[in-house]
């Protein structure tokens, strides 16, 4: 293994690879920063271009785009409350309040450093432990995936807001909206209103952009500019970016834990970046000494989301490289591109092209450094967005939101859905209903339902399959702890105080 890593390291620093990493990172950041566009879109359109590259070059290029897009998604999430990628949804929760309070550069600095550490740490771990992680991830069958969905839903408890009933209603509405599609077992449409676009899935990109961005636009239209503060001297300030980076470095526990959560969830095929970021955010909030400050613009909230979404990148590569099964949309594109080059990812790749696989993982760590340099150079210019007058910014963001919703599936239906979610979001915000539970419901509902159905089919209707498998037992314990930890903590503390 050491020999392979050394050879990969040497090949990575050729001028060709450095150029590809830089280009991939720039393209990734741009695609990530455009709402509705993701690394998957960017990689898909770049497939023809990669035919001119070597197979290793193509993989390194895609990995850089993937990594760059995860960071790029945080830029509009922080500056205009519009997640550039679905994985940056949780970044808006603390990133935007911090930007509005007059510290956009600091928020960008925190996000930059957390993304960089998330990418580097997870890729180094994967580099050293790719085989055992892949073997473990593939023990996850439908029962385990069902409990993973429940674990994600249990996060609702921690992002619920002040009124528990309103938070739960928001989550339940998300589950019901997600259940409008055809039944996963029989294919019978339930409440699709005759729209073919709703037959398979309720698309979550228009839902996320509609709830967060369009709703925010309604409010921004009544303000002069995004920044609430009069003192604008700290906006577009290089020192503030450095300060943000320093803050992220001062919170290693959150950064490391979030990167590992991202890596672990990313390695499970189909689990996705969004789940990883919300699980990570919920975990950071629950383990914080000041959970009530989450959502007001605290660094831990940004770190939890950003370290996790870059951690996912390395995690998602594991099943693709080791078993030839994509762990995410982007890795599916990478897999297709490799096949175009005549290489079949999977055990064969790890045997015959091991240096190439290690090179991709090393490139993820190295692109973390390129990301850091680009973020440092451009961050202060990005931050000035909060000073642009809203009468210019609002029309532009509206157009970007609409085209982002359209580009996700090339469907006009999604743009109308975006407006529906925007208006619903406005009323939810007026009534103080939190958005996150609804988003979690829309994303996790189909996953929970489909895996519940598959599990019951596997067991012939025996529910115990969901509980009495080694991994599900551990996962249920985590779900239990995730929901009842504050109560357990309080009880244990009370017992100690008494004794």
């Amino acid at each position: 293994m050491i020999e392979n890593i050394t050879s990969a390291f040497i090949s990575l620093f050729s001028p060709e690879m450095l150029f590809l990493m830089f280009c991939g990172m720039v393209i990734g950041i741009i695609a990530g920063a455009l709402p509705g566009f993701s690394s998957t879109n960017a990689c898909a359109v770049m497939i023809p271009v990669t035919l001119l590259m070597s197979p290793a070059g193509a993989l390194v290029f895609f990995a850089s785009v993937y990594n760059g897009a995860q960071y790029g998604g945080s830029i509009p999430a922080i500056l205009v409350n519009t997640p550039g990628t679905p994985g940056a949804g949780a970044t808006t929760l603390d990133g935007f309040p911090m930007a509005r309070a007059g510290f956009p550069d600091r928020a960008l600095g925190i996000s930059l450093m957390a993304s960089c550490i998330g990418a580097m740490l997870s890729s180094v771990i994967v580099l050293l432990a790719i085989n055992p992680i892949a073997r473990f991830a593939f023990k996850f069958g439908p029962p385990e995936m069902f409990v993973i969905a429940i674990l994600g839903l249990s996060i609702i408890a921690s992002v619920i807001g002040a009124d528990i009933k309103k938070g739960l209603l928001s989550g339940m509405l998300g589950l019901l909206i997600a259940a409008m599609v055809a039944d996963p077992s029989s294919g019978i449409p339930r409440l699709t209103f005759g729209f073919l676009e709703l037959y398979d899935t309720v698309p979550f990109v228009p839902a996320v952009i509609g709830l967060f961005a369009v709703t925010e636009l309604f409010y921004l239209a009544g303000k002069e500019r995004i920044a609430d503060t009069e003192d604008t001297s700290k906006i577009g300030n290089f020192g503030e970016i450095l300060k943000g980076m320093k803050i992220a470095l001062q919170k290693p526990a959150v950064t490391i834990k979030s990167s590992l959560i991202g890596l672990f969830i990313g390695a499970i095929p189909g689990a996705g970046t969004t789940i990883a970021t919300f699980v990570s955010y919920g975990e950071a909030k629950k383990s914080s000494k000041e959970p009530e400050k989450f959502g007001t613009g605290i660094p831990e909230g940004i770190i939890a989301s950003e370290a996790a979404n870059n951690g996912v990148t390395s995690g998602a590569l594991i099943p693709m490289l080791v078993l030839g099964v994509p762990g995410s949309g982007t890795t599916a594109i990478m897999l297709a591109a490799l096949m175009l080059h005549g290489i079949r990812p999977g055990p064969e790749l790890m045997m015959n092209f091991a240096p190439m696989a290690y090179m991709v993982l090393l490139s993820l760590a190295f692109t973390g450094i390129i990301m850091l340099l680009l973020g440092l150079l451009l961050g202060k210019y990005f931050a000035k967005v909060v000073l642009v007058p809203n009468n210019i910014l609002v029309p532009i963001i509206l157009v970007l939101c609409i085209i982002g919703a359209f580009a996700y599936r090339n469907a006009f239906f999604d743009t109308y859905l975006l407006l529906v979610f925007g208006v619903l979001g406005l009323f939810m915000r007026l009534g103080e209903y939190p958005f996150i539970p609804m988003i979690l419901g829309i994303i996790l509902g189909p996953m929970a339902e489909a895996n519940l159905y598959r599990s019951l089919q596997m067991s012939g209707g025996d529910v115990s399959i969901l509980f009495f498998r080694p991994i599900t037992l551990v996962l249920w314990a985590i779900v239990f702890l995730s929901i009842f930890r504050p109560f357990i903590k309080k009880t244990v503390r009370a017992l100690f105080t008494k004794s």
Partner: protein
Amino acid sequence: MNFNTKRFLLRELPVPVFVAIFSAVYFFSTKKHDFSVTGYPYVVIGVIQILLILILRNVFRNAESSDCKNEKDLRIPNVLALILSALCYLILIPRLGYYASTLLLLVILMVFFKVRSSLFLFAVPIGYVALSYIVFRIFLRVPLPEGILF
């Protein structure tokens, strides 16, 4: 009913009313299906009904005494302008094409939001359309809708 109570109800009621109507429509239009198809959503609807009762009880209990948060940034004409212009934009895109309708929307919204400088009124929409042509058409090769113009 005083003004504050009315405002409180207008803020608190739309979401529960929407959820109640949505779940009723869901229930009645899927009643004909087998329980294996609708079992899971019906459990969700059941929980929603319980939550709705609890929320509505709270709303009517607090209606008289609650203070209404002042939403100073939210202006109804702005909200309506954004929704209507977005709808018109969506109708126009398949006819005029993405670039022409975007140009139109940006100019109309900027005039509505009182952008005084004529330089901005022309430069921003044209700059945005040119940039989006480069990014979407040339760089990302996204097939954006084309119409009679371009």
